[in-house]
Structure formats: structure tokens, C-alpha cells
């Protein structure tokens, strides 16, 4: 599951941010500038950052001005992963001509995981483990932990036949005859999540066909695996020999 989390890091994020302006500006002017920062922006990562400090393009999907007092602006920002909020505040200040910096920040969403849904605190985890270790009850722990499949909920999906699962786990491509059903959002060259009929995540792959083509075809490669999550041995080996995967 650690491997699929890498993919989640690269999905979109949402923040609540307090920006402090060094001099007040009219609210209308602030709104105009925030509008300018919506869409594709150029951003140079800050001095203290974990990436190469080259100017790069980042997509800001939405900036909502929630409150404004003249000194502080409360913002909700929906953006691409790797966008620096501290830098965004600084740059907004530059364009406004008065200067600004980030005062407080909270991330409220990473990919599909929103703070409003299934958010747990450290002590919830501790309590769940105590319950298991002292009372032998799994109930709290099963509430605190979600099946990892939740982390791919926003990715187009394909359901794989039992007989083809183990071959994908061993790195084979998913061929058309190995498919039970496919979401109509599957597009050629985009990422798809491969699931078993029980809903278990096998792995992520790159679609070689659109959903429509999969339905109309009798054979051919439908998905090339990129990251396999499932361990070997859960499903049976059913292919006959090398080069004849997925029957």
C-alpha cells in the first residue's frame, strides 16, 4: 500500500490558508489578483524545499476568499500537488504591491482523503491498538484503518477475472479476455486501477485501449501494469505457459 500512496501524493490537494498582508488593499483588488493566480501559474520552489529550484508550472484549480479583514485573508485553495502555499502568498503580495506572507496553513484534502471523512487522530489509533491488545477486539482498529482501495477511488477502474489476477501480479499485461467489466471513463494512455471481482486492488496500470474498444474487442492488450500492489499467491496461477498469459 505504501507504493500506491506515492500516486496519491501526486494528486490534487486542498488547503485552508491565512495570508497576512503587509498593508491593506481594497477587497476588490485582492479578488482580482487571486483571480489572476487561478489557472496555470509559474512558481519557483522556495529556498527551503525538497525539490530542484527551477521555475515550474503548477495548476491552481480554485482560490476562494473566505474572509478578509484588510490585514488577514482566509483562503481555500485547490491546487496541483507540489504547489507551495508559502510561495503563493508571497507572490500574491508582490503582485498586490504591498507584500504578504503565509501566517497559517492546514491541508484539508490529499487526493480523495478529505478531513471531513474518516479522519482519525493519533489517540484514536492508540485506543484502537489498546482495545486489540488488552481486550482482543478488532472492531476499533478496523474503523481506524480503511482498506487501501479507498486511495484509488478517483481513478477509472477495471474488474479482472479471477483467472487473470495472478498473472498481473507477476507483471503480465491485462488482455481483453481477462476483463469482467470496465468503467466508461477508461481512456487510452491514462491510469487505471485494476481490481478483483471482490474489489481488491491488484495494481495500477496504463490503459492501452478506451473502454469502448475493450468492449468491442475479442483480444489484445487492454492494460499494461505500472505498479502492482497485490502480493503473489493470493489468487491461483492459471496461465498455461510463458507468452500465453491471460489465457
Amino acid at each position, binding site marked *: 500500500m505504501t507504493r500506491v500512496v506515492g500516486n496519491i501524493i501526486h494528486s490534487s490537494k486542498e488547503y485552508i490558508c491565512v495570508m497576512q498582508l503587509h498593508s491593506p488593499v481594497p477587497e476588490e483588488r485582492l479578488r482580482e489578483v487571486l483571480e489572476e493566480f487561478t489557472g496555470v501559474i509559474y512558481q519557483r520552489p522556495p529556498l527551503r524545499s525538497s525539490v530542484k529550484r527551477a521555475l515550474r508550472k503548477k495548476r491552481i484549480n480554485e482560490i476562494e476568499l473566505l474572509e478578509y479583514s484588510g490585514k488577514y485573508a482566509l483562503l481555500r485553495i485547490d491546487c496541483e500537488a507540489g504547489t507551495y502555499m508559502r510561495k503563493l502568498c508571497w507572490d500574491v503580495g508582490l503582485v498586490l504591491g504591498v507584500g504578504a506572507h503565509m501566517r497559517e496553513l492546514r491541508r484539508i484534502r490529499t487526493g480523495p482523503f478529505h478531513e471531513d471523512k474518516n479522519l482519525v487522530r493519533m489517540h484514536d489509533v492508540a485506543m484502537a491498538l489498546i482495545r486489540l491488545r488488552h481486550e482482543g477486539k478488532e472492531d476499533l482498529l478496523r474503523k481506524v484503518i480503511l482498506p487501501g*482501495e479507498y486511495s484509488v477511488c478517483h481513478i477509472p*477502474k477495471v474488474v479482472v477475472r479471477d483467472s487473470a489476477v495472478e498473472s498481473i501480479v507477476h507483471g503480465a499485461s491485462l488482455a*481483453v479476455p481477462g476483463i469482467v467489466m470496465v468503467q466508461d471513463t477508461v481512456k487510452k494512455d491514462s491510469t487505471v486501477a485494476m481490481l478483483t471481482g471482490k474489489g481488491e486492488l491488484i495494481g495500477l496500470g496504463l490503459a492501452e485501449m478506451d473502454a469502448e474498444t475493450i468492449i468491442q474487442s475479442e483480444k489484445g492488450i487492454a492494460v499494461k501494469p505500472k505498479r502492482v500492489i497485490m502480493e503473489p499467491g493470493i489468487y491461483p496461477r492459471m496461465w498455461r505457459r510463458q507468452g500465453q498469459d491471460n489465457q
Partner: protein
Amino acid sequence: MDIDLTQKGRDFINTINEFCGYKANWLIKIDEPTSPEWGWLPYERPLEKYIEYGVINLDKPPGPTSHEVVAWIKKMFNIKRAGHGGTLEP
């Protein structure tokens, strides 16, 4: 083969779709049921597997870094492998 199990599997997949408001139609290729002989419905994995294939949407307290929090979680669970979905700042 198990029709009821297959339905439960599809219900689970629809549950995760709804979790993030993902809307799409299913196109059926072959209506083949899944077998109870192997694998598990994700919520019915034995605890060890449930943890191994699980995620926690954790409210990180301000102060400790994400890496520190991951290290605590690993220690609490006595596991080697765990990751996190992102940091605010390095």
C-alpha cells in the same frame, strides 16, 4: 462461484466510488462471478492483511513532521513499511 460474493464485491467498489464522488458507468464484458476459494472482500481480510493493505486518514498534529508521525505509527504497529500521503513542508 458465488453470485452473492460477486455482488458484495461490486457493492464495495461502488462504496469507494461514492466515497470520493466518482461517477462512471460500468460496461460489462463477461458476467463472471468471483470465487470464495481465494482472496477476500477488502473489509473481511484477516487483521494482519487488513493492516498491510490498509490506509489511515490521519490528522497530523502541528509540531512533529510527517516523517516523525510515520515513525510513531510504525512503532505502535510494530511494522517496517509505512508511508504517508504528503507533507506540508520538508
